[in-house]
């Protein structure tokens, strides 16, 4: 009989807590979104599976000595994984649309209003009993508005590691929901005539300009915002590898094998933060709500800025491209293209939207640097 008792004690059945079951259901939910709905599957699948693993009773995946514990410790606690991802993203980014039309940087800047407005909103949530966000927590939550997964994870790992799971899940879910969140806002803020505006052909950009550009961005960051150099530096390094043309092998590795490898571990490690005690809180609800608001405000700010620029330029800028200022490359640009095509089936805005889109990546990295410098 004793043996039977011991055997029973060694099964998970005897040790399941309700929180773990709920979190496993959340993990299954993420797997469902990834596999069936195809929402950001490259990240939600590993995150969902990580959530399953970390909530297995007795297995101790996320306790000292467990696999996920070490992956988290090595990759996210140190900030290494998001930075490696950022290098790969840099190696995949083509800045020619932005270099050809540098004014688009203003749209990338305007869309960052989503971040700072959410920072304010997160602090205002403290007025509701039950919420206690510090300025650091609020900054980490606000960065969801940057619509940039690696930046959000990097900042959260620095400022509010306890909220990292919820922040990463919110950031990636909303990035997947960009095609649903953005179009109503874009349509509400623009008239049909504005959506029909065709934009002029972009000028050709020389290889030399593309090589100097990442170096110039890095140089400026070194001078004015050293706190952002981890993010911007790795990004520019990846981009330089791509554009210089002499290290194709390294560039290919950065944008394929390396980023894929890191994505697997990053996803698992983020999933390991989805434990009941950290995730099933009122704060998570607040974070999910604030994230959606951050996206909406960022989109609106970008579109409004583009409207102003459109007026000032005499109607040569389609205000829709402002929505691409929230990074989410290239999803946001595709959404702009799609909404533009709905208004005018011969109007292809994709290349024009790529300008503000990559400007948004720089903008959110700069915003993250500011938050690190001022709050961290």
């Amino acid at each position, binding site marked *: 009989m004793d043996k039977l008792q011991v055997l029973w004690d060694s099964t998970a059945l005897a040790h399941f807590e309700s929180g773990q079951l709920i979190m496993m259901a959340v993990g299954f939910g993420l797997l469902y979104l990834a596999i069936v709905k195809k929402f950001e599957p490259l990240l939600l699948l590993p995150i969902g599976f990580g959530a399953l693993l970390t909530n297995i009773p007795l297995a101790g995946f996320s306790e000292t000595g467990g696999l996920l514990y070490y992956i988290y410790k090595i990759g996210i606690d140190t900030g290494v994984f998001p930075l490696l991802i950022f290098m790969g993203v840099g190696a995949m980014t083509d800045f020619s649309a932005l270099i050809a039309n*540098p004014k688009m940087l*203003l749209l990338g800047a305007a869309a960052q209003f989503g971040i*700072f407005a959410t920072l304010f909103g997160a602090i205002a949530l403290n007025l509701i009993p039950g919420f206690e966000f510090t300025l650091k927590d609020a900054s980490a939550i606000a960065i969801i508005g940057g619509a940039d997964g690696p930046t959000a994870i990097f900042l959260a790992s620095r400022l509010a590691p306890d909220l990292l799971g919820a922040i990463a899940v919110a950031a990636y879910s909303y990035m997947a929901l960009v095609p649903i969140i953005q179009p109503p806002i874009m349509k509400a803020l623009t008239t049909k005539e504005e959506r029909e505006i065709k934009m002029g052909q972009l000028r*050709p950009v020389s290889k030399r*300009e593309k090589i100097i550009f990442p170096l110039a961005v890095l140089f400026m960051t070194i001078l004015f915002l050293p706190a952002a150099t981890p993010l911007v530096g790795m990004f520019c390094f990846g981009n330089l590898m791509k554009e210089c043309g002499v290290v194709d092998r390294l560039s290919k590795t950065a944008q394929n094998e390396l980023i894929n490898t890191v994505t697997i571990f990053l996803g698992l490690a983020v999933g390991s933060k989805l434990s009941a005690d950290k995730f099933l809180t009122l704060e998570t609800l607040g974070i999910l709500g604030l994230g959606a608001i951050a996206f909406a405000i960022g989109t609106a700010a970008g579109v409004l800025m583009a409207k102003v620029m459109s007026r000032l330029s005499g109607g040569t800028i389609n205000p829709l491209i402002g929505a691409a200022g929230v990074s989410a490359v290239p999803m946001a640009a595709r959404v702009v293209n799609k909404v533009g095509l709905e208004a005018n089936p*011969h109007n292809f805005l*994709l290349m024009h939207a790529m300008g503000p889109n990559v400007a948004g990546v720089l903008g959110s990295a700069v915003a993250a640097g*500011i938050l690190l410098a*001022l709050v961290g």
Partner: protein
Amino acid sequence: MNSDSIASLLFEAGSLMLIGMLFVFSFLGLLIIGIHLIARFCEAFPGEVAEPTPQVKRPNQAIQPGIDGNVIAAISAAIHTHRQATKK
């Protein structure tokens, strides 16, 4: 959390918002100037032939109603033969 500390936090968040947006705009604004300078520099010292930006494929250009399909086929064939012939 008492309302006093929330008020001071709110004030801090507000000033962060102001400073942050100001900085983002001025940083990226400076970058605009930087890109113009780079373009000017590259115009003054053109190293190589400029490569055209990759253009969005416009499917409507491929099937223009005015042009006969045979003409397109003939031109494509000619280009193909030319490329084959000039290939080293």
